[in-house]
């Protein structure tokens, strides 16, 4: 890769370039693919993924093999809680938002406590939590109907609210600004990078590593809960395990954004581009007229090829 100009070794630049290429390719394959309306639709889906990926990004940046596999369960849980608390009425929205955020924060807190106090590896802790959440969903679904989105919420997610952009895109932009501010301008952000790159040194320097790591998991739960509410608005009603499909893609979006799974290196701007890229790629595959099997094969192979551009491990040297 040494012949490539430095600019194009930047993950963000690679992702933006690939998005442009994919959009042109999509337009060639099916005219209208890159129309303003289509792009807006893609951005709505990307925003859902991107909001989940924000929390995932924080947990991964915090290092010590940070990863959150429970986000899929929290999204599904949040969608069903929101659906029931609002049940089609606008008046229920504030309560629904509050309830979902509390639930997301609660499960994130449990993850964080397990990872820090008991020192359970994040992969194991969040995997176990995913099993608990899936069980909880079965219980809830048996007791109560799935619930419906309030009209204002659906409007917020799918209809333009300001300058022709749907509310969820504005929300995503706000999340992006918040993350950029948090990671670059606050002590908290600096400390995330510090514990992510060298936890021991950070603790020696007086950084409360455990408290920060717990907060990262709480934030991941909250972001997943917000995504769950938006997902309810997007689809109108919640259904079984809607969130599952976001679990591993949220990790891939972070990787495509140039954040290393080893922690301590990366940011959210790239992740946003990574989320858009994933969604555009998936969308192109649905426009091609081939069978589902071929689509999946191409998707898997393309992901592998794209990964070659990002953070490959170092070769062994003596």
């Amino acid at each position: 890769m040494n012949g490539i100009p430095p600019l194009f070794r930047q993950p963000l630049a690679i992702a933006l370039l690939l998005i442009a290429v994919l959009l042109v390719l999509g337009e060639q394959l099916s005219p209208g693919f890159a129309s303003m309306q289509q792009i807006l639709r893609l951005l709505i889906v990307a925003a859902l993924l991107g909001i989940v990926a924000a929390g995932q990004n924080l947990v991964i940046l915090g290092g010590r093999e940070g990863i959150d596999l429970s986000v899929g369960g929290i999204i599904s849980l949040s969608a069903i809680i929101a659906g029931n608390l609002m049940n089609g009425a606008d008046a229920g929205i504030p309560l629904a938002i509050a309830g979902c955020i509390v639930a997301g924060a609660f499960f994130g807190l449990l993850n964080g406590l397990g990872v820090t106090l008991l020192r359970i590896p994040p992969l194991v802790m969040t995997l176990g939590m995913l099993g608990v959440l899936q069980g909880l969903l079965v219980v809830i679904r048996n007791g109560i109907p799935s619930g419906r989105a309030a009209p204002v919420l659906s409007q917020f997610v799918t209809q333009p609210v300001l300058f022709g952009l749907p509310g969820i895109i504005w929300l995503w932009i706000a999340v992006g600004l918040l993350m950029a501010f948090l990671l670059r301008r606050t002590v908290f952000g600096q400390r995330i990078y510090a514990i992510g790159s060298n936890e021991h040194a950070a603790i020696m320097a007086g950084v409360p590593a455990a408290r920060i790591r717990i907060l990262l998991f709480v934030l991941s739960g909250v972001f997943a809960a917000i995504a769950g509410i938006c997902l309810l608005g997007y689809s109108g009603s919640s259904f079984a395990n809607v969130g599952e499909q976001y679990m591993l893609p949220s990790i891939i979006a972070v990787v495509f954004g140039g954040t290393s799974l080893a922690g301590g290196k990366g940011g959210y701007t790239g992740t946003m581009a990574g989320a858009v890229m994933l969604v555009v790629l998936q969308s192109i595959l649905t426009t091609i007229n081939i069978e589902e099997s071929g689509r999946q094969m191409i998707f898997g192979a393309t992901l592998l090829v794209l990964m070659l551009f990002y953070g490959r491990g170092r070769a062994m040297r003596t």
Partner: protein
Amino acid sequence: MMARILARYPFLPALVIALVLLALNGLYQPRSVSLIGLTGLTKTYLALMLLAIAQTYVVYAGDIDLSVGAIVSLVNVVLVVLMERWGGGGVSIFAAMAAGLLVGLACGLINGLVVAALRLQAIVATFATSIFFTGVALWVLPVAGLPAPTAFWRTYGGRFFEVPFVFYAVLLLALVLYLMARLRLTTQLLAVGDDAQSAFQSGLPVTAIRIKGYALCGLFAALAAFCITGDTASGDPLVGGKMTLFSVAAVVLGGAALSGGFGTVVGSVFGALIIGLINSLVYFVGTPSEWQNLVQGLAILIALMAGILVGRRTRR
């Protein structure tokens, strides 16, 4: 004293938990510890045991394989489709099984190449290959439901000299695992997982060893697919999807460290058994059906945490 025994036999906590769960199963449902009950348990969970073994070999080296479930699905459909196409007789069954093993091996080699040779991050790379393998499985058999030949599942569920077939399978598996534990590759995988850099510096071909670990994983995933096919008696391109995360949980329950360098395949087998016994116990104690998943999930989470805490005590 206790710590030294545990360090030598890291699977002991898993064995104890499994035995306690088995006793509890027997307490709430005496028939579950009868020959028929144990046969049923083995028949259902032999696939997960094999998949946990598969996962263990990559975890040894500090890697992970999130595509094992997809490999199970792919081998399952290849096996069923080939058996049907080649007539369903004795020879065709063995030929199809040989083909299934080759498919599993090929999948493992692909994983090994992308993770070890191309140096992609194991979690995301094997997720990508799992999408690819699922695509191939859907291409081989687009919809679930093609039945396996009667001879195949009758054998798997049948008896020879009054002893159920699955017990012979377990015995054979135990022998294979015993021999595998003595292979140089097992030690090499553990050495790479313990410290890849120093393994490399002491002259071990780290990349080749990791690829072999994934290849072994693919082979055992194929064996797991044989058991699934024997148990469900049909082909389903998505049958293994749910098993991936359970295989990781089983490995952790068995006392292996996900960071590599420590663990036993025997422990992973007990880990898979623990998951199976928790599932049946939750049913036997009369948990209302809608609560079963939650109780299972909680029990598995607690067992995972307990296993890690006990394991850490002993390794210090």
